[in-house]
Structure formats: structure tokens, C-alpha cells
């Protein structure tokens, strides 16, 4: 089963629907001092000379193939789900050492009131039941997608080809 997320940056509007859908799906506790939202949306204001563009980016765990978090975890709490290829956490084994946070290039791991690591599990149970991840379902612009990495990039490539023609 395929396991990648894809975000069409041109279509993400920073509307936060994905972030809240994830909270609802996973009963997340977001109050201080341990807010544990698994999907985050950022507004990035990119300045080039006098030009400013505000872009929006929705991020959660990338489910890396060579997952640095998995390799860094000393207690074997992080594993790869055989069926969905999602990188998952077994909180019972987590010792709360934060090695995964140091290793993860995307700042994904969160630590709740119990001090154990938690993060996106790619809605694995939903994938197995033939449903899309909660965040993907909610996205009003269909910026956020999930599926076979090669099909997702092929779709992006098709759009790039269309843009090339439009530009001529």
C-alpha cells in the first residue's frame, strides 16, 4: 500500500481544515502546556527584493523511507507498519528521551501529558478500511493528497507540463 503525502503548494490556502480534522480523528489534546497537534499549518512570508508572497504550508509526519526517527529511537518504540508503510509509534515502549525529535528533519514529534512521543500515523486504520486520511478528506482545495508517491508526482508533473505550454 502507498504511503506518501503530497501538498500542492499552489492550492494550500492556510485554512487549517486539515489540522482540525486530524484533531477530531485522533481526539487530540491541544491546550497548553502540552499542545499536541499532529498536523500544522504555517504562513510563510517570503520576501524577494521588494516582492512579498505569503505562502501556506500544511505539514505532518512525512513517513520517511529511511526514517531518521526510527533509527534514532533507542527503545524500539518507532516501527514501520507492514501494511501501510506508515512510520508508527508504540507509546508503551517510548521512554520519552526525545532522540526522535533531534533526528527528525521536519520537527514532527510531539510529547503529550504522559511525556511519550506521538505523531501522525497516516490514519493507518482508515487506509486499511479503504478510507483516505482525515486531513486529506477535509481539505477544501484538495491541496493535500495521499497515495502512491509515483502517481502523486506524475500528477504534479502533468500540471507542470500544462504550465510550460501556457507560458509559451
Amino acid at each position, binding site marked *: 500500500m502507498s504511503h506518501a503525502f503530497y501538498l500542492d503548494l*499552489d*492550492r494550500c*490556502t*492556510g*485554512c*487549517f*481544515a486539515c*489540522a*482540525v*480534522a486530524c*484533531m*477530531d*480523528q485522533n481526539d*487530540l489534546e*491541544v*491546550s*497548553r502546556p502540552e*499542545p499536541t*497537534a499532529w498536523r500544522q*499549518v*504555517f*504562513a*510563510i*512570508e*517570503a*520576501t*524577494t527584493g521588494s516582492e*512579498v*508572497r*505569503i*505562502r*501556506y504550508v500544511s505539514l505532518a509526519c512525512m513517513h520517511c523511507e529511511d526514517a531518521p526517527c526510527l533509527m534514532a529511537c533507542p527503545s524500539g518504540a518507532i516501527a514501520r507498519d507492514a501494511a501501510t508503510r506508515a512510520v508508527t509509534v508504540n507509546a508503551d515502549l517510548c521512554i520519552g528521551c526525545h532522540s526522535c525529535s533531534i533526528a527528525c528533519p521536519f520537527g514532527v514529534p510531539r510529547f503529550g501529558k504522559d511525556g511519550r512521543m506521538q505523531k501522525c500515523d497516516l*490514519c*493507518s*486504520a*482508515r487506509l*486499511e*478500511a479503504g*478510507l483516505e486520511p*482525515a486531513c486529506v*478528506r*477535509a*481539505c*477544501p*482545495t*484538495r*491541496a493535500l493528497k495521499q497515495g502512491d508517491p509515483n502517481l502523486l508526482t506524475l500528477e504534479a508533473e502533468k*500540471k507542470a507540463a*500544462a504550465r510550460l505550454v*501556457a507560458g509559451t
Partner: protein
Amino acid sequence: MDKLQRMIKGKIPGEATGIEVRKSICTICDPQTQCGLDCYVKDGRIIKVEGSRENPHSEGTLCAKGAAQRQWVYHEDRLRTPLRRVGPRGSGEFVPISWSEALDTVVENLNRLKAESGPESVIFYCGYPKQMRPFVQRLAFLFGSPNYCTESSTCFTAMAMAWRLVYGQMAGPDLAHTKLLLVWTGNPLWSGTPNARRLMDAKERGVKFVVVDPRKSPIAGLADLHLQLRPGTDGALALAMANVIIKEGLYDRGFVAEWTRGFDEYRIYVAGFSPERAEEITGVPVELIRQAAVMYATAKPAAMMPSSTPLVHHTNGVQNQRAAAMLVGLTGNFDVPGGNVPQALAWLEVPGGGFPARDHAFKMPRQWSEMPPRVGAERFPVWTEMIDQGQAMDLVRHITTGDPYPLRGFVGFGLNYRMFPGSPRFLEALDKLDFICLVDLFATDTTKYADIVLPACSSVERSEVRAYPQKHIIATEPVIAPLGQSRSDTDIIFGLAQKLGLPYQDYDGVSSNGGTPPPELGGFLPDGSPEFSAAFEAAMDWILEPSGMTMAELKKHPAGMPVPNPIPVSYRKYEKNGFPTPSGKMEFVSSITEKYTDREGIDGLPVYREPRLSPVSTPETAARYPLVLGTGTRLPMFIHSRMFRVPWTRSLRREAMVDLNPADAAKYGVVQGDLVELSTPEGSIRVRANVTHLAAPGVAHMYHDYPEADVNSLLSPDYLDPISGFPGFKASLCAVRKVSEAAPDFDLPQEVAR
């Protein structure tokens, strides 16, 4: 974890997990959105929601607010019983009472006020949601009061008025067939997410986007041309675009000659708005104005997307919106494929819903002429001539002065006092009333002023009927039982009507004709709570009768169904019927506003006036309050006061913040998260600074309704457009001063420079 446990944790519906998916709709926001909602229910409780795929409007998606439905529905602030006030007004001290006691107290007081001061002394009001509006209006009119008002006194109506002044009707953009979309303010990517996908698809199809907006909003990010004007100067920009279009001969001469009124006067007036002059007023460079005008006039077809509020939340709002709307007819884009196409309104005024309904007859069992003048009649004559509601912005004055007659009672559904400019003054006025009954979902700062509070339930706990522009209709059924003793708004309305002895269910008026009234449906449960679901269905059957649809048929389709034999979309309807304006033509000079030109700020032509407070019109005030203040610009996670209390949405922006441009922030020595004082001549609030290029230099945007930082308290209750009565929320003046540094744990994203 075994497989079943994993499925339960993953909330997978099915027999094994005992999770059932039930269909409803979301009405947390209510500007003709109503996304289809799949509620995952286990043991009578919603454990998750997602969008219904079957809904052709939202197509399985939700916004951040809708996705937080579960925390909103089950929130601890939900009212669960009727309440009677025991402490002073505003104290929040209440005791629970039975439905019988509550309804009897309301009815006793309404009848007393009617006997003492006439039925017009009672105000009936409707905020969110909008499904019960016709029911509240019918209640008011049968009671005998013309004083039916809604939150549309500050939303949408002024825009519709402007279009109606020009064309006799509203005409939305035909996005599917257009080549260019002129987005005139508003950011539907946050405020109307069901259309976000369609806009993105249009962009990918190669539709050109011209966006007029003071903000660098997400939709401005899609723009091929972004005209970032000074707030409130839209009229000058539109007139300058007309100037270019006429001068360059790009207007539709045939249409203008045959189908318009007052073009010569208009042409002479716009001749005074050269792009050079408009640049001085609006701040938009001459070249951009020219380019936008030529692009819009030559795209053929081009559509204009109006917004419900930003263009009309100005003291010159209707005139600005008229000037913009006129560009449509001028360029021959009215009622053509890919242009702006008027469509008949279905139930609850959904354009292009595709079926006729009897809302009007239902909500207006009496004519205006049979009742005393309504709130705002003297002060807002254009509104009063055009809109079948009172203008609530005149309530403060009317209650306070008792002119032309005393107002003493208030029955409000979803009243939020912070909607009113000069909000503390509205509370003071409210407090002068003899009797207040408020119906709400939550205990709010406004319900603290009620004498009796009645608990309403949310959309997932009730039945309602909604139409969609995709010619789809749904009649929902409750997916969970109402929380506590809460009831649907319509149950409450029918219950009040019955106890008041009004002929509410006599839709054909047989009793007034001497016939026998129909038997009343519904009644009161043993605990006294109103149960009128059969009456609601009978009412809807009566309303839907011209469409041929029945509730029995609709209820067979839990996710809704396509409207059978929908009214087909057609074009150039004016060629057959003329325009529904007094002259039968598109009016550059309005036959309606022309009658009131003795009033300050009302003219036949779309005359441009500066906002009443602006660096240009009030330079002395601007010397002390140098920033333009816009209130109420949308954020994606909130809708008015509705989502602050919900932890999931609140976590996305924990603190009240004012958007400031980095240049202004630097000027005032403010960085992201600093505590600042935002002040106007009316008062001040303390909020955090959000330093962002979303705000143009010189403009501060502040979201409204925060209990701890109510920006509408900084405006005067009289800061209103004389035509519509709408507040000038989007352009007044303010000052910003730093109070203290950001707290170290301040958790908002910082600006990133690349």
C-alpha cells in the same frame, strides 16, 4: 492492539465497531455554505465528523470550523435548560426553570407589553443560524410587530441592495464559463470554503484573476493583477475603471443605448475620475488601474465576484458597490454566459437553487402598510423601501429616545451584542428594555442580559431544509438527541405562537377569511418542552408546495437529492422581461435613491465620498489616529463569536491579535507578539501584534467579537452608511502603541525572509 481495537480507535464505521455514519449538515457558519456532514455516531454520541461526499456543494470537504463540530456541539457552555435571571442584568446569575414556566413567563410579558404599549414595542431578532428566519418573522408579524431585524443589518444586504439599485436583482459570477474573474474584495478561500476548490480549478484552467483588496489575502495570492487599494476607496477605483473603459471605447454601446438609464450623466460624472486622480485617492498605480480596466472589459466574458461585506462595510458602502457593479453592464457582461447571471432565489434566498418556494408569503402574513413604521424607517428610507426587515443599526437610537414610539421588549435568537458598532452602547440600550428573552446555544455575554434564556440545539440535533446552488436540496433529521432540554428554534417558535394564541399554522389564512383554521400540529411534552416536529414538516410542505417536493419525499434521501426538474439556467432574460427596476432598465442613475437626494450621502449617481473617518476626510483626527482600522476581516478558524470557546479552533490562534504591516510595526517599535494598545477616539483595547504583509502599510486589521478585546467597542454606533445603515467596519481610524514585549512562550509563526 488487536484488529478490532485498532478499528475502534481509528473510528472505522461498521457493525463490528458499532459506529454508524449519519447524515446532517453544518451550520456553524451560514453564508449559503451548509457543508454536508457525516456524523460518526457511537452509543448516541458523535465521535467524529467529516464532509459528506454526496453533497455537491462541499463534496466531502469541511473547513476548520466544521471539522471542530464535535467540540462545539458538546461544549460545556451549551445551555441545557431554560433559565430565569435572579441577579442583576449582566451578572450571569440564573436559575434553571422548566419549559412551562419559561414559555409562560415570556408569553405573559409579551402580552403585557402588547396591551400597555402596542405589539410594535416588542423587537424580534434573528442572528445565526438563518434557517429559522422566516419562522421568526412570521411570529413577529402575527404578534403584530413590524420590528423584525436580523444580523443582515450588517451583512450581505447592503451588497444585494446595491445590485438591486442597478439591476433590480443580484447577479452572481458564472465561474464555470468565464475567462476572467474580477474579485472585488472578500476572501472566499477562508470564508466560503465550498467554493475554494472551484476557484483553484478556474485558476488552473487559465482563468485570469484580478483582485481588488486592501489585504494580501490568499485570494490576492492567486491574482494576475492585485489592486491593493486604501480601504473604502473602492468607488473611486470603479469609477476610474469606467473612465478608462468609456474613453477607450471598450463599453457595450448597444446594450448601454437600449437597456440603461442615466448613462449620459454617468459618463459625465466618471469623466472626473481619471486614473491619475484615482491613484491619488486609492493608492493604486495608474498603470494597474488601466490594465485592470482593459483586461476586464476585453476578456469577454468576464465575471465579477462580489463579497457579502468588505465592500459595503463603509460609510459610503452602497455607492462604492454600485459603482463596481455597474462595470458589469457597462462591459456587456450582464446575464451572459461567463458573466454575471441573475438567478431566481430558492428557499432561504439561495440563488439558483432551482425551485420556487413560498417563503415570502410564509414570512409576511401581514403587509408593512398594516403596521406602524419599523425600526430605522425614518433614518434609512432606502433600506426600508427595499428590504423586508427593520434596520437593527437604529435600535440604540430608537430604544434610547423612544422616538417615534417606545420599544420595550426583545425576543432574540442568537443575538451577539458585539456585532453592533459601539457595542457597549448597544448593551446600555438593551438594559433599558422592560423584558428580554434570548434563545441561544451557549451561555454568552449577551444572554447575561436576558430575563429568560431558552436553550436551542444545533443543526445535528434538529431537522431543517436547505437548498444549494447545484440544484440540490436536503431535509435533515437529528443525528443525536438534543442536549439536555435544548430544543430546535422552530419548536420554540411554534410553542410561543401556540401559547400566544396566534393563528401561526393557518397558512392559507382561512380563519381570516371566515373559514375554519386547520387543526394545530404539535404540542408540549410532559416536562413542558415544545415538540412541534410535525408542525415544522407541515410548514415546510406548505412552503415547498410550488416546487412539487414534499417532506415525505425529501426524507427518503438522508444526504439530500437533486431538485427534480430544476428551473433551467437562462441568459439575457431582460430582453424578454426588462429589468426589475422602476424604469425596467439597468440604472446608472437610480430611480430609488434619486428620491432621497435631500439626505446627506444619498445621490442618484454612484457618487464617490471618502469614508467619514479617513486620512483625507478628517486629517486632524488622522494626525492622532494615523492608521486605517478595519474590523471583522475573516480568519479561517473563527466565525463571528462562535468558535473562540472551542479548544481545537482556539489553539490555532490563541490570542486576540491585530494585523500590522512590518513597516508600521517598525515605526512603532513593535515585533511579533508584543502587547499593543489599539485605540480610537471611542476607546482602546489591548491585543497582540501580528506582524504580517497581509496588512498593507497604514492599515490595521482586527478580528471582531473577542470577549477580552472587542474591537467594535472602538467605533461609534452612528458610524453608518446613510443608504443601507451598514457600519463602516472596514475603514475608520486608529492608533497603535506598544505596551510590553511578547511573552517568551509566544507560539505564533514568525515572518520568514528568504
